[in-house]
């Protein structure tokens, strides 16, 4: 379980600090798939950065009940761009997060190859990143995150830069991966349909400063259909609430 309590974060600015997140509260159960939706610029990426410990919040806390475990990292991120290190072969990119954990070389390689196998790219281990397609690179980025066996896998609009067909394929692969690994996932997107299709629970991040404005359980059983009526109704309701916030915030 991951508890995020009363998170507040402000960026220093020329005319004083701008508060981006205020009193953000969220508890994520182990093995849960949670999506955070919000307009662009609302603070979704910032939220993930704070949780990952890349930015120190002004107040609040992020606690994982699993505690530190050797050979693992508590958080892992998948970004919108695949962020490959172009000078490393695919398998070495996947090993990136495993370095510095004191693992023997063979163990690192084994875990990297296992993670690549999970995303179906074991046969591409010796390629250079530029030899892969955009969708394949994003799979490698997912493998890199899975390799460190995180308590929480965070994904920041991971399919936003892909074409529609590849995006749908990767969405289905992700659900499959999640069901097989039992990972806890926090998935950020501005695409409400995507959130409703993928997640158990959809959290609306809105306002300025931003906080949790609503939470919807998506009870549609899996495997899901993209045109499921109940899911569509949930998406429509979230969209309405979001547009209220956007209208309120018009002029910002």
């Amino acid at each position, binding site marked *: 379980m991951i508890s995020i309590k009363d998170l507040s974060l402000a960026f220093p600015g020329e005319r004083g600090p701008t508060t981006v997140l205020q009193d953000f509260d969220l508890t994520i159960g182990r093995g849960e798939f949670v999506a955070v939706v919000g307009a662009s610029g609302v603070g979704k990426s910032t939220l993930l950065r704070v949780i*990952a410990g*890349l930015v120190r919040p002004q107040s609040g806390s992020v606690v994982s009940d699993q505690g530190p475990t050797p050979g693992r*990292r508590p*958080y*892992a*991120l998948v*970004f919108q*761009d695949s*962020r490959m*290190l*172009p*000078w*490393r*072969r695919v398998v070495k990119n996947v090993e*990136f*997060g495993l*370095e*510095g*954990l004191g693992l023997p070389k063979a163990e690192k390689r084994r875990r990297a190859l296992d993670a690549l196998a999970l995303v179906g790219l074991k046969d591409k281990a010796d390629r*250079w*990143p*530029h030899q892969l397609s955009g969708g394949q690179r994003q799979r490698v980025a997912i493998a*890199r995150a899975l390799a*460190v066996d995180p308590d929480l896998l965070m994904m920041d609009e991971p399919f936003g830069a892909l074409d529609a067909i590849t995006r749908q394929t990767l969405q289905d692969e992700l659900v499959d991966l999640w069901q097989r690994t039992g990972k806890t996932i926090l998935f950020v997107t501005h695409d409400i349909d995507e959130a409703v299709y993928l997640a158990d629970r959809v959290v609306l991040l809105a306002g300025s400063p931003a906080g949790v404005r609503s939470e919807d359980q998506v009870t549609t059983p899996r495997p899901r259909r993209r045109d499921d009526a109940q899911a569509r109704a949930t998406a429509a309701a979230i969209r309405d609430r979001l547009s209220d916030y956007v209208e309120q915030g018009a002029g910002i």
Partner: protein
Amino acid sequence: MPKPSQSKRLLLAFAGVAAFLLLWEAVPWFGLVRPILLPPPSAIPETFWREVQSGAWHTAVLSSLGHYLWGLFLGSFLGVALGVLAGMSRSLEDFTSWVVRLLRPIPGLAWVPFAIIWFGVTPSAAIFIIVVGVFWINFFAALGAVQAVDRDLIELADAFGHRGPVAKLFKVILPASVSPIMAGLRTGLGQAWMAVVAAELFGVPGLGQRMMQASSLLATDIVVVYMITMAVLYGIIDSTFVAVRDRLLRWKA
């Protein structure tokens, strides 16, 4: 435009060299210039052989290579190291910015008086001049390279647990800057030869000094032998460097 075939390109390159040699041979042959002012290329092999037999060639080449390699190594190493440090630390960059601005425009040759006062007419003086000659090229190449490293990759390092400056340096910053740093090093390879000649002109034994002696005797054929020697040495060193670089950068398309 269709790409000319490999053999055709090679043929053209050879034809170019041949035409150049022919023109060079023709100018003194037709009496346009006196051979003492421009020795014909046909006279060069014999002069070269005389230089080799007297042992002058070996001595000069070995001692110049020594100056070259030491100066190149020290200047490149210091330049890259300090450039990387200044690139990683904003405060170090600010701290050094005016010192850099004042020292940078001083050409390497302007240091000759100090080189002689500090080291005497010794190999160390020549090495010092070469170090100054290649330092700045590498300093600025490394500084620019490190500052241009994609911030997103630095963030990636943070996100995957490589938080300290040393981890970041070796996991991301250095590999990401290899390409521009290599470009700086390569410019230095050429620059250092100029510095070698300049540094030896004031009497430190080597190619430069031998050329100086020869020119004062109007032995222009000897001067040409050493010019060619330098060109060939540079060609060998540069193509070796390019081979190593291409191996290091084979991840590029």
